Structure formats: structure tokens, C-alpha cells
């Protein structure tokens, strides 16, 4: 054992030096706090959404909205207002960059029979009912861009609640367009969209 000491120290030092930045950052206390609810690999754990693979600018913006208490649905008040209270803009950005760098996995937990309707609404919209096509902003694979979130593969229950909460008067952001868009959707259309998106990789 004693003879292995220096060797182990050298190996450990080498490993430390070769570890990617994100791996060392994962040991950070702030990340571990997130993992309590969002899961060990940040894939989400109902009702906490997946953070892995989410757009970094979106995560950073949402942490700002939690910090400012703009995002105000019940779970946000209960958990995220406190979680974001002590964050600095710099630490929010670091967390956002870290979680966006993780590989996302699709939740695959929607209602398969509803997915075709959800796909139609997502890709084409319903012009006669004044429902816009989600694809224009969220992208062909629901991957999101910039501050527009990735929706593909998020959990059915999370997507369903988020879409319903806009019409209920809760805010996830300071401005348009989602409150108006989502409040035009019927409960069945919301379930269809949430189902479809849960299967998108």
C-alpha cells in the first residue's frame, strides 16, 4: 500500500488534468443541488424537467426568471425560487452551459395514439383554428435555438402542465408569444402535443 502512494497520486493528478471541464464541474456543489430533483444525469425526474441537452441560453434565462420570481407556477414557487435565490448571473450561466452539454434522452412516456395529432399540430399548425405551427420557432426536431427551448423528449406530464399553465395565468417568461399561443389549445390538443414531443429524439 505504502509503495503505491506516489504512483496513485501521479495517476490521480493525471486523471484530474485530463478530465473534461464539465466532468470536474459536475462535482460542483451547485450541480449536485440541481441533481437532487432533476436526476443524477439531469434527465429529469417528474415533475422536475430534464435539463440535459436543454438550450443554454434558455436555461440561463429561466434561472433569471426564477431569481426575479417571474416564473410563478406552484412548483417554481415551491422549489425554484429558493434554488435560484443565491445564484449570481455568472453561476447561472455556468450551470446553464454545463447542463446544455449533457446528452438528452427522450422520455417516451406520452400516449402513443395521440402522437399523430400532436405531430400534425407541431409541424403544420391548424390555420383554420388560428393555431400556429410550433416547428417555425422550436425547429424540425423540437431542438430549440437560443432562448427558445428544446421540447423534444421532455416528459409528457411536464409538457402537459406547462402548456396548460399559460391559459391558467401562470408565467414562464416576461413576454409573448407563448401565453397567447398556448391559451388557444384545447386540453385534447395539449395532450396530443405533449405525447408527440415526449417521443421526439
Amino acid at each position, binding site marked *: 500500500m505504502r509503495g503505491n502512494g506516489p504512483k496513485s497520486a501521479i495517476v490521480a493528478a493525471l486523471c484530474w488534468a485530463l478530465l473534461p471541464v464539465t466532468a470536474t464541474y459536475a462535482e460542483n456543489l451547485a450541480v449536485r443541488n440541481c441533481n437532487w430533483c432533476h436526476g443524477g444525469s439531469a434527465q429529469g425526474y417528474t415533475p422536475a424537467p430534464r435539463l440535459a441537452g436543454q438550450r443554454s441560453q434558455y436555461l440561463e434565462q429561466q434561472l433569471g426568471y426564477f431569481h426575479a420570481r417571474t416564473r410563478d407556477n406552484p412548483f417554481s414557487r415551491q422549489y425554484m425560487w429558493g434554488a435560484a435565490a443565491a445564484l449570481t448571473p455568472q453561476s447561472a450561466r455556468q450551470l446553464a452551459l454545463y447542463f446544455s452539454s449533457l446528452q438528452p434522452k427522450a422520455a417516451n412516456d406520452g400516449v402513443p395514439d395521440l402522437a399523430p395529432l400532436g405531430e400534425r399540430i407541431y409541424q403544420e399548425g391548424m390555420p383554420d383554428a*388560428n393555431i400556429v405551427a410550433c416547428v*417555425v*420557432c422550436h425547429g424540425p426536431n423540437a431542438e430549440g435555438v*437560443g432562448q*427558445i427551448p428544446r421540447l423534444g423528449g421532455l416528459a409528457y406530464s411536464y409538457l402537459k402542465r406547462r402548456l396548460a399553465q399559460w391559459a391558467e395565468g401562470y408565467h414562464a417568461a416576461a413576454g409573448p*408569444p407563448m401565453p397567447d399561443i398556448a391559451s388557444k389549445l384545447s386540453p385534447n390538443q395539449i395532450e396530443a402535443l405533449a405525447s408527440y414531443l415526449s417521443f421526439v429524439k
Partner: protein
Amino acid sequence: MSAAWSESVRPLKKAFWSCSPTGGEGRMMLPKHRAHETIRRRSALFVAILTIVLAGGGWGQYAIAASSPDVQAKLSYCKDCHGPSAQGYRGYFPIPRLAGQQPAYLENQLRAFIERRRTNNIMFNVAHSLSPSMLSALAADFHALNPPPIGGAPQRLVATGKKIFQDGMPENNIAACAACHGPGATGSGEIPRLAGQLYPYVIKELTNWGKERGQNPAKPDTSAIMSPVAHSLDQEQIEAVAAYVSTLK
């Protein structure tokens, strides 16, 4: 909230926007379309004259009012994507500014989607759900809006863009944009306003001109005027012009 959308211009050639090979259907339906077109134009003219002549006599109720719930609902739908003041929006794809746009241009483009002269699957569906009178009401509303441009273009390109816009490039056979679009890029008739248009949208249109516009050989349209110009501009010049017009109020 839009300040940080901007970091990158999305890739220009997405399958989503690319030409769909369904032009054949449009060609087969040509005679019917043309008949419809003539009838529609005549009825629109008739309604317009009636409205003017009989406005004082209580016929106003037969014209679609801009304040009608249907028009308001449709406007709100358009603005879900094009922005609350129709200032445009940077989604996954750039969504053009409609504010201040020439009504004749807007109406022609919406017809172009339906007639497959202009390729865009989303707008094809959207345009199909609009009646001619709805279309005119929407175009009039958008024309009256004038929010500030959303910005986001690289400032270093603006000066070059201004020169091309105002003087053209005679050595490359490129006329001054201002000659047709007006010195303030406000357009006229079927010639679109470019002032304040989104930087990535103008780039996409000029880059893909021949793949998006004038796609129905049986129905040649005014987009042909821009074809040689769009072809002759190189990518750097396109970006410069797009940057310049995106800053104009």
C-alpha cells in the same frame, strides 16, 4: 426579451423551406384557378365600389370590418409568429417583419403561396385559410404598423450595404436597390418594403431566390424581376445589403 435571440444566423438551406415537387398539381388546376381569379377580382372590385358608393346607406355591414372578431382573431394568430407589432421574430427560422409592408405585396405573396408560385409549406397552409376580404383587412392592418426594427445585424456590414443599396454596382450589372424599393426602402405596390426587415430573413430570401420564388412556370410573376439581381450578388454583398436595410426605420 428579444435582445438575446440573436447570436447566430440559422443555416439557410433547411429542408423545411426547400422547394416541394408538387407544382404539377397547380399546373393541372390552372384554368379553374384563372377563372376563379377573374371572378374573385371582379367581385372584389364590385364589393369595393359598392362599399364606397353605398357607405352612407347602411351597406357597410356587408363589408368585413377590421374590428370584426374574426379579423382580430386572425391578426392575433399572425402576430403569434410575426411578433406582437408584426416586427418579425427570430425563431428557429427567421419570421419576416410585416409591419409597414405594402398591402399589394402582402396580398400578392399570400396568393403566391396558394398558387405554388412561392414555396413555403407553413405559409401555404396559412394562406389557404384566408378569404380575399380577410386578406385585405390583414394587409391594411400590417401596413399601418411601424414599430422600430428588431436589429441584430453586424454593424460593420452596414456601410458597404448602404453603398450597394444606393448606388448599385454598375461593374457587375447590379442596379441600385433604391431605384425600385425607394430611397428609404419603403417599397411601392408589389415592390416590397425592405426597411427594418430581419437581417437573416433578407439573407435567406436573396440566397434562395430561385428556389423559393417564381416556382410555378404556368404563372410567371413579378419575382422574375429580382432573379438576375439575386443571382449576381455574392454572399458577402447579400449580407451587406441585408444588414443595411435591417437598420432602416
